[in-house]
């Protein structure tokens, strides 16, 4: 037995995770920033959105702003919070960044708990303003909400696609691949990463936080523990870190595996057993993916190979040299001659031996 409404509900959850996975993919997949605090950013986004949009006479009063204004405001607030977190955290490298973001997410959660007058504390925020809710019956609304989640996932997908094919995206991956080299090429790693982290925060507040709040119907601090971060990470690893469609596929796969388990009918005595199957399935899925497709179901390599084919490089065969875009130009420095390495006979005639040394 299955119901379309139930599938709608879990599909909505899957698409909310698909949004979050894509954002994590920008910073961790392409930017190499292994953020273990993404749940914290989503928490700030969700709380900001709800507080901005909740009626002024609610149990925990909000500002009663329209949904779109609330989303924009949540985006700005979360972006600023990311900036504040990123400032110290991005001075640290690798595992220290990981630990710091993990700690910041927990601090944010504790701040939400402590600032009871603002956030409702552990009691939470119990009313969530949802877009178009008044225009539809409660039976129809889940479908509307699913469409909204798919549309927002599509918006983030387009944002990510554009980043993937941009100079910014290339620099982001370059800095991840080889940080010293990127620095030696004039790239300010700190600015690049900090702005990326803030950008991810902005998108988390703009899209993920509100959409998650629409799905949940209420916010309590316990939603935003590290287990949310790990769910997002697991989906990204399964789908394929660095790939464009992988984060979405990973979220859909992981949520389907997690939630469709509910459709197995068991007697009350075996409810424990069924609950144990869920983490087991997720674990088996993770192990299977890591064993047979270590890059994830889809890989970064395949994504960029495809993009490369699509935007086929223009191999200029004319002698005309394209305009230089290098910053040295802007600093007024006059380059003597464009280097024509090929003029050197040795290089044209002698192929560099392959596989030597």
């Amino acid at each position, binding site marked *: 037995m299955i119901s379309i409404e139930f599938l709608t509900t879990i599909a909505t959850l899957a698409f909310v995770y698909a949004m979050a996975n894509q954002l994590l993919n920008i910073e961790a997949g392409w930017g190499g920033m292994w953020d273990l605090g993404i749940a914290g950013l989503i928490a700030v986004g969700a709380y900001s959105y709800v507080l901005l949009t909740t009626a002024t006479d609610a149990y925990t009063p909000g500002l009663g702003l329209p949904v779109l204004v609330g989303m924009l405001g949540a985006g700005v607030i979360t972006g600023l919070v990311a900036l504040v977190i990123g400032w110290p955290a991005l001075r640290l490298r690798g595992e220290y960044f990981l630990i710091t973001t993990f700690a910041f997410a927990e601090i944010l959660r504790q701040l939400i708990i402590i600032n009871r007058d603002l956030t409702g504390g552990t009691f939470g925020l119990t009313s969530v303003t949802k877009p178009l809710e008044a225009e539809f019956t409660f039976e129809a609304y889940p479908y509307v909400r699913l469409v909204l989640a798919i549309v927002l996932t599509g918006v983030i997908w387009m*944002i990510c696609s*554009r*980043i993937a*094919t*941009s*100079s*910014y*995206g*290339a*620099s982001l*991956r*370059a800095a991840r*691949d*080889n940080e010293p*080299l*990127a*620095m*030696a*090429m*004039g*790239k*300010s790693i700190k600015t690049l990463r900090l*702005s*990326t982290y803030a*950008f991810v925060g902005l998108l988390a507040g703009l899209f993920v936080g509100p959409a998650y709040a629409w799905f949940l119907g209420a916010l309590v601090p316990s939603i935003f523990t590290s287990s949310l971060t790990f769910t997002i990470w697991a989906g990204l690893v399964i789908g394929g870190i660095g790939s464009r469609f992988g984060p979405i596929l990973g979220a859909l796969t992981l949520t389907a595996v997690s939630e469709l388990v509910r459709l197995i009918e068991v007697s009350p005595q075996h409810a424990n057993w069924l609950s144990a199957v869920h983490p087991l399935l997720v674990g088996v899925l993770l192990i299977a993916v890591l064993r047979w497709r270590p890059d994830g179901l889809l890989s970064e*390599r395949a994504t960029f190979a495809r993009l*490369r084919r699509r935007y086929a*490089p*223009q*191999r*200029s065969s004319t002698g005309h*040299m*394209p*305009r*230089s*875009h*290098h*910053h*040295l*130009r802007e*600093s007024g420095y006059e*380059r*003597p*001659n464009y*280097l*024509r*390495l*090929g*003029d*050197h006979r*040795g*290089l044209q005639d*002698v*192929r*560099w*031996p*392959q*596989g*030597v*040394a």
Partner: protein
Amino acid sequence: MFGGLKALRDVDLRISGTGITALIGPNGAGKTTLFNVISGFGTPYIGTIRFAGQDLTGLPAHRVARAGVVRTFQTPSGFPSMTVAENVAVAVAGSHLDKPWTPFLRWREDRRVRAEAHAAAWQQLEAAGIANLGDTSLSDLSPGDAKLVEILRQLALEPRMLLLDEPAAAMTVNQIEVLSGIIRDIAANGVGVLVIDHNLSFVLELAETVHVLEFGAVMASGTPEQISKDPNVERIYLGGGEESDVA
């Protein structure tokens, strides 16, 4: 500073903005430290680094690079997730579109810059005779090709001064010969070149000026002829027996 020891103590070098200058010395003499300090990967506690009238002391590496002083790396690992052409194109495109919002607010410009950077990159590769490698992933290159791409990519940044970190390391005699030709070519195009290496014959054959470092200080400076006759240099390189890769 390495492990609390002063790696550099008394270095006063004037390196010509044109031509090829070499910096040699045994392992531990402070070559790499000096190189890092110049390129912004280390900060001197005292002392200054000036380039063409500009004070580079303590500037972060990316600012040094933007000032026109560009280095290469001894291990030419590049950006392994990208192809050879993309590696070079990243350099050509520069850094002025490296903001998260430029793909959205300056998309046309971004697309144009990308297209032109790719075209320029391919042209570079063609000129260097390795256009056939353009679509190869950098991680699939032979070490020799990787080294060539390392130099090509940094040249695409249009440096005024190119710092080469042990370019001849792990290369065959034939490769070194080609490499020397390239370096001369670079210098002939008006880019100053500073080479550090401990391959004495490579350096003496290539450079116009040679500085010898020992124990963090400049021990000798001069033309290759002067240096090769310097008894102290002979002591380090032949008497010390420390260096085994003297060709």
